[in-house]
């Protein structure tokens, strides 16, 4: 490595911070445009859904039973959350489901 690792780290950090802080500081008032408002209302749910599946299954290229623990965690998580369980219980249940299922495959 010829470049300085710390300079690399601070470059990354500066870019990451600017991306996050610019919208927060520049957009100070309520957005009135109906399309933008609706768009921003839907963004979080879509982003989180996109990131959850199929990532929760683990590697897609592995042979089938490898994705089973994640699939069971997904179904269990949806059922529990649907019945009103909070963040922590659902997260723990998913971990336990994966851990136990892994023991059998």
């Amino acid at each position, binding site marked *: 490595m010829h470049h300085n690792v710390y300079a690399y780290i601070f470059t990354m950090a500066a870019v990451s911070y600017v991306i996050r802080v610019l919208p927060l500081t520049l957009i100070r008032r309520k957005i009135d445009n109906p399309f933008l408002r609706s768009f921003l209302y*839907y963004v*979080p749910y*879509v*982003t989180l859904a996109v990131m959850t599946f199929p990532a929760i299954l683990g590697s897609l290229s592995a042979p089938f039973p490898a994705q089973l623990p*994640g699939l069971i965690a997904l179904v269990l998580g949806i059922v529990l959350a649907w019945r009103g369980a909070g963040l922590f219980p659902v997260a723990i249940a998913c971990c336990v489901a994966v851990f136990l299922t892994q023991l059998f495959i």
Partner: protein
Amino acid sequence: MKTKAWRRFLWGMRDGMPICTGYLAVSFSLGIFAGSIGMTAFQGFLASLLNNASAGEYAGFSLIAADAAYVELALVTLIANARYLLMSTALSQRFSPDTPFFHRLLIGFDVTDELFGLAISHPGYIDPVYMYGAFSVALAGWSVGTALGIVAGNILPVRVVSALSVAIYGMFIAIIIPPARKDRVVAALVVISFAASFAFAAVPLFSALSEGTRTLILTIVISGGAAILFPVKAEEPEASGKGGERDAS
């Protein structure tokens, strides 16, 4: 009635715990990668403490390993983290007019997928103190996990690591399902997002794109389509906005 700040901070810490455990697992594997390219534990700790981005850091570390130019590193970080631009824009709408400006600067430090999810899981205005509580455990988990991964390589058995790593997804599920239950459009969007994301991950043409880019494209297309077809009535998301009050459930 406003709850005391330290209690709201503690609630944030408690609700941040699944994020912390999930981060430990994910950053642990990120640390193993950072170690393999020759970064020290301190460098990994610092990078994670300052960046708070899994995909962004992974991409960045690859470029550090390749001895890339600083500009290139900056550009790749920008693309890998571009989705935070959207999330911060969404969050900008959730600040109470009474919230002092410096809170925007501090909240901006740790807008991650998971902490953003936590922030929007509560209706109404953002409570910065609550978020700082969550930040404290999340930052600790993320940066310490990276350092641990570098130092130890393999402290935990693989089974435990992979079990812990789904904590984050469990949390995502707990965030998106309750609104999906109340709002059919959101429910349909969740199903469509699952399907589209699966298709993108499975089809070689799209799976070649980085995960961050795929997330960005799908988010813009699906949310944009929904916003055109099903515009939200004004004030709906903010209707119950009361800063500082949260139930303890």
